[in-house]
């Protein structure tokens, strides 16, 4: 199988695997007072210190969660108290569902948040909590976090950023740019699933109201015994070097190929994550494309799949004003260990799929035509 669905979950990084396995060998609960407990606590606190160093934060301002969904929900819960909440139109459901009554900040057709509108909305909602993703999971479009943070600061608002897709794939100190909190995911960076974190700026770490009170773990911020192995794996995964230039070259190669067959790239006018290609094939249902590619052994995704696996039209692309194309786009997201062979296989499968669905002649390209 050719796995090109890294934005759903990155393949496990070997370093993350080794760290997680070592953590699994540690018997003990970090809350216990005995030696075993202290050993477990050491693993937990090392991970916390690692994240603090990586994201220019203080260790005491980091709370571990079950994943980015919980981290985003906790941010809205903790920082949204007594504030209006504004969310970007292309935010992940984790944020949209956590703030169902939030005002929605529109995006431009490029996928970038409309900063002019944000400024106007902030004037109408002083003291708001603004939630923006660093990079969009479907299109890879990167918001200008510095500009958004600047706008927030000018109106006395605060900014929470969802860095689930960006952390580990690009180095940017969002807290230094002015964010009040940052949501992180472990498995989106090549760690084991089951861990995430919410990183606060030093100004906002103190007043956290927990979602889960539980046994008072995480200094009362988040009840429940922490998933030690997943947390240790997350810290290791996020710390790995990311070959952005090489991955972007592969992405650009696939992009040019898809466009040559009639594909239309979503978010092409914005800065994007190096690994993400969202491409619509006009007139061809996204699920047909996805099934055809899966049958050819290539794993990609489309829109946001519900737990049934049903592919609905993408709310992200609808918000960008893409109309019917919102139901005709697939997301190709290259994993950290993507190879040229993966790209070649994708191109072959895409060509077959597109030709058949567009009722052209279903003749595969020869290998010679792929060589470049």
């Amino acid at each position, binding site marked *: 199988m050719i796995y090109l669905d890294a934005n759903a979950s990155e393949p496990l990084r070997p370093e993350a695997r080794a760290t997680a396995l070592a953590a699994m060998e540690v018997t003990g609960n970090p809350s216990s007072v005995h030696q075993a407990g202290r050993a477990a606590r050491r693993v937990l606190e090392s991970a916390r210190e690692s994240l603090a160093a990586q994201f220019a934060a203080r260790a005491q301002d980091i709370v571990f969660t079950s994943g980015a969904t919980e981290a985003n929900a906790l941010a809205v819960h903790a920082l949204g108290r007594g504030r209006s909440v504004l969310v970007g139109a292309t935010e992940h459901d984790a944020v949209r569902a956590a703030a169902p009554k939030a005002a929605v900040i529109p995006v431009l057709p490029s996928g970038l948040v409309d900063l002019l509108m944000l400024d106007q909305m902030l004037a109408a909602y002083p003291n708001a909590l603004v939630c923006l993703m660093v990079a969009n999971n479907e299109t890879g479009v990167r918001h200008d976090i510095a500009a958004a943070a600047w706008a927030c600061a000018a109106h006395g608002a605060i900014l929470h950023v969802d860095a689930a897709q960006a952390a580990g794939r690009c180095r940017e100190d969002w807290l230094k740019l002015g964010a009040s909190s940052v949501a992180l995911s472990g498995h989106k960076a090549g760690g084991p699933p089951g861990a995430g974190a919410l990183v606060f700026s030093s100004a906002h770490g103190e007043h956290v109201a927990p979602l889960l009170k539980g046994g008072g773990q995480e200094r009362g911020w988040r009840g429940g015994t922490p998933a030690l192995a997943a947390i240790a794996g997350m810290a290791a995964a996020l710390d790995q070097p990311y070959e952005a230039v090489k991955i972007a070259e592969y992405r650009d190669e696939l992009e040019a190929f898809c466009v040559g067959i009639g594909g239309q790239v979503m978010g092409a006018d914005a800065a994007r994550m190096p690994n993400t290609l969202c491409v619509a094939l006009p007139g*061809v*249902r996204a*699920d*047909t494309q*996805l*099934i*055809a590619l*899966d*049958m050819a052994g290539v794993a990609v995704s489309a829109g946001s799949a*519900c*737990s*049934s*696996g*049903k*592919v*609905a*039209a993408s709310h992200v692309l609808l918000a960008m004003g893409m109309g019917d194309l919102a139901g005709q786009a697939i997301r190709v997201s290259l994993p950290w260990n993507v190879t040229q062979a993966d790209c070649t296989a994708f191109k072959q499968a895409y060509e*077959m799929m597109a030709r*058949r*669905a567009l009722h052209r002649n*279903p003749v595969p390209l020869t290998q010679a035509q792929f060589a470049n």
Partner: protein
Amino acid sequence: MKIVVAMSGGVDSSVVAGLMHEAGHEVIGVTLQLYDHGAAVGRKGACCAGQDIHDAKRVADKLGIAHYVVDAEARFRASVMSEFADSYASGQTPVPCIACNQHLKFGDLLQMARDLGADALATGHYVRRIEGAAGAELHQALDASRDQSWFLFATTQEQLEFCRFPLGDYASKAQVRDVAERMGLAVAAKPDSQDICFVPSGSYADIVGKFRPDALEAGEIVDEDGGFMGTHQGIARYTVGQAKRLGLPADAQGEALVVRKIDPGTRRIVVGPRTAASRVVKLRDVNWLAAIPSSGLRAQVKLRAREIPQAAVITADGAGVALLLDAPALAAPGQAAVFYDGSRILGGGFIAA
């Protein structure tokens, strides 16, 4: 062959997937998500997918075949549910399963199967497809009590060529369940599905009312001379030929009065004796699965899903297609009239208003 199997999550289509898999075909299971299950059962926050989708996934897993869920909600709403309500509001009695087969299963899904490069689409319908001299023929199922040919009359010849219906050759549903049992499918003992899948409460009028509240507005029941007989709570609750829910005494001859006509404009239900039925039935949207007859064609016709076929002459000319029944009958507009020659379906159409 590469075969797409339409899997509903019930025992029939699950067995079809298993049979195709056992026959060595590359099987792609597809479940159409027709409506939001959570909304249909009125449970806020419930998953959009019902138990049936989970069952279909489990069967596909057990068989080791690919399985996908395809979003058909918008299409189902527009071309089945909304049409269903509109039809009632216009005084007719629709058959949503025919519309679903026509537009979703043998329309969109079949097109998807072609787009995927499949060689055929197989479903769990109880009908038979028999290779004839002039192409595929559609026949009733061996098990007459399960036969679904009436619901498939609108399948075009081109669609029929692409379809496979392996269950039509089974003598009984019990045999199909035995096969499911042998394959170790968890759905082997699952109860049969209900009549109208998107009306889980069984009250179709509620659904009609959501789309077309006007179809549930009160009106008058009158006799054929326009004389007032009573009132009713919406024309959607009545079908031509119906004797129930009129709340009227029998006529002078002791015969129950039946609905003879539904007038959506005045919201009047016209009642009269059943005996005064007509022999002529006009049809619309006729589909032929045999050569179009150049002169009157003697055949058996079925005007309802569950009735004994009756003899008629079918005429097709510039004015359209009409039936001349041997014995008069009250045909309900919106229902199907399907033509049979023995077990073979020759074609059919919808009864015109």
